[in-house]
């Protein structure tokens, strides 16, 4: 495994884990009304944008309101999937005891069944992040992203298959879900449920979604139905492209590392934190951008604290960055354009055999120098020169 972080010894890893833990505890203690108000505001925005969007599509007679309506509907679907759905399904708002925001009762506006998603994403992906053959999200079983995956001629097509996936991302997510659940069920127990049973859940959700977007709402528009079908298709397409872009930036940027199953045997919580850090990458932006990505712009924080209300990642990020700097760990972040470009560089590079791929990806610096000497007590780090002068005199 290549790494551009400092290699830590056992004690250092545990100390790192402890600092991350105390950061988590401190922030979780603050969770309360502010977070409840935030998710209710998000819920409200999602409802209003959907009503306005659909309304504009239905009752438009010229292109401007049709475009506005389609954009509003896309925004609504993005909010529903990202800041609302993704975070609620992680159980971030279970403490509110409100069925609207409870991971047990929530279902989202996407062809992926929420229950299946919780299995392969919340459990498999978040537990075995970037572990090859265990994290099914790593390349979604068809994209080669590291030398550890054996090259096959079929990988030459992966730039095109990925473009296809981007446009139909919700279908990818949905179809991925039921297979993972089947594959991860121990062979002995598979008798209870066949692949067909898992598939049925997915097909049911597909049916519900298709009927809603392409039959029910168009029918309500009467003779205007082709316009509504087109509007819904475009809204779904925009949502798909956006979520694909954001999600692929989370783990497949140039410097995001992958792991093997041997590496995680007997892993401690602190080591798990470290793996989440090395395997994830962030996006810089403003608050609106953060909300529209469902705070997956803070993938590192999200992977360390998946059940923390997502808006809190904004205040966690700078402090986590400090901790990482202190331990000489690479904190992978960059602008959306830069990160997304590096994802595509990687997708294209690894579509070729290793000798070409490594040439494109280049050799990286093995370790970073820690910015702070570890043995120093932390209070000295935080003292400014002025304060030092005061304490000395």
């Amino acid at each position, binding site marked *: 495994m290549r790494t551009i972080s400092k290699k830590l010894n056992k004690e250092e890893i545990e100390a790192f884990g402890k600092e991350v833990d105390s950061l988590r505890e401190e922030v979780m203690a603050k969770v*309360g009304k502010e977070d409840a108000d935030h998710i209710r505001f998000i*819920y409200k925005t999602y409802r209003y944008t959907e009503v306005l969007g659909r309304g504009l599509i239905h009752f438009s007679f010229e292109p401007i309101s049709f475009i506005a309506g389609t954009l509003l509907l896309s925004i609504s679907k993005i909010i529903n999937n990202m800041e609302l759905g993704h975070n609620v399904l992680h159980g971030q708002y279970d*403490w509110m005891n409100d069925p609207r925001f409870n991971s047990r009762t929530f279902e989202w506006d996407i062809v992926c069944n929420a229950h299946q998603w919780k299995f392969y994403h919340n*459990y498999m992906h978040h537990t075995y992040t970037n572990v090859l053959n265990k994290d099914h999200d790593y390349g979604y079983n068809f994209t080669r992203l590291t030398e550890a995956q054996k090259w096959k001629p079929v990988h030459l097509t992966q730039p095109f298959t990925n473009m296809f996936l981007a446009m139909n991302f919700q279908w990818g997510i949905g179809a991925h879900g039921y297979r993972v659940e089947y594959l991860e069920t121990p062979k002995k127990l598979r008798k209870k449920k066949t692949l067909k049973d898992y598939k049925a859940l997915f097909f049911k959700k597909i*049916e519900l979604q298709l009927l809603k977007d392409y039959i029910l709402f168009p029918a309500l528009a009467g003779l205007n139905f082709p316009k509504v079908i087109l509007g819904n298709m475009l809204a779904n397409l925009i949502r798909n492209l956006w979520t694909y872009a954001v999600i692929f930036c989370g783990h497949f940027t140039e410097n995001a590392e992958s792991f093997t199953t041997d590496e995680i045997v007997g892993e401690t919580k602190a080591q798990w934190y470290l793996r989440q850090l090395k395997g994830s990458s962030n996006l810089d932006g403003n608050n609106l951008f953060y909300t529209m990505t469902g705070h997956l712009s803070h993938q590192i924080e999200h992977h360390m604290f998946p059940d923390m209300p997502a808006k809190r990642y904004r205040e966690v990020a700078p402090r986590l960055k400090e901790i990482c700097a202190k331990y000489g760990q690479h904190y992978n972040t960059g602008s959306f354009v830069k990160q997304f470009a590096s994802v595509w560089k990687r997708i294209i590079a690894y579509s070729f055999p290793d000798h070409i791929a490594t040439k494109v990806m280049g050799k990286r610096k093995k370790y970073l120098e820690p910015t702070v000497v570890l043995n120093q007590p932390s209070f000295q780090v935080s003292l400014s020169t002025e304060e030092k002068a005061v304490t000395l005199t």
Partner: protein
Amino acid sequence: MKTFPFIYNEPREFLSFLQPKEWANFFLGELNPRFSVTATKAKVIEVKEETSDTKTFVLKPNWLWKGFVSGQHVPVTVEIAGRRVTRFYSLSSHPNDRYLQITVKRQKGGLVSNFLNQNIKKGDILELGEASGEFVLPKDLPKELLFLAGGSGITPIHSILKDLQTLNYNGKVTLLYFVRSFEDIIFKSSFDLMQKNVSWLTVHYVFSDTPKEGYASGFLTKEILEKYVPNLKSSSVYVCGPSPMQTKALSLLEGLPIKSELFLLPGQNVTKVKKEGTVDVFLTLSHKTIQVKGERSLLEELEEQGIYPQSGCRMGICHTCVCKKQTGSITDLSNGETSQLGEENIQICVSRAESNLELEL
């Protein structure tokens, strides 16, 4: 219908997937926070101070309110620090009154009772459930009635007495009200007025903490009963108050027709259990395994570890927290029975882990 088999076979599920109720609730709620198609919400239209630590909240419910019978209680849900919490309170008003009212005494360490007393003001919205409870008058009214109340246990009795008044009752009623001091008497003026208007009611106040001249003091004893209730043998008895008083009453009044209502604070119904070691609880839907001690209810022990399943009354009444137990054994705290090992639905607020468990959570 081969093209759309699921919608054809389960049209209802498709309808509910479109969330018609959620949409309606959302827009009605935007118009007026009291409006809803699924939740009984009530606006606080007046807050009356009964004593220094007790307040009465007069409530105007929305159209979903189905009414109640004197003596019944209702689940009240409030949001505290972003979190919805439910507790049961007796309705202290009469069913014929224009508005509902609940009377809440601050309990030491009580989350909701303190919140209501401190924070709820005119104009706020409370969420109610359906009224329920067996602490009500029978169809054929008994000739003689004895009411034993302790502290805030007076609230359902106040409603029942008002009911007797409207029914033109012509028997005999004795109310023994155990309360800390004269200042702590709830509904004093209401009882004074009632005693003036009807001939069948006698009220005796007994002070447990601060004695007052002309009144009895102490706790419930055989002597006090004999002193104030001459025709004890032929009375139907209603008891509502703290649990020591109830236990005492039940032992003193053995053999009499007795109805009692005991309101426990969440967690109070747990018989203290000390255990060595922990048991594993595997949550099948979230794929987490956690260790619990099995000393308190599963709900409390899960919440302690940052897992918040949906919950409501926390005393086994409302069934909000029901979940499927796939394997393992629990003890039902409401009746002390230990369950079988197999699959069954349990209420995690009144279940204590006995062995390793698998829960569908």
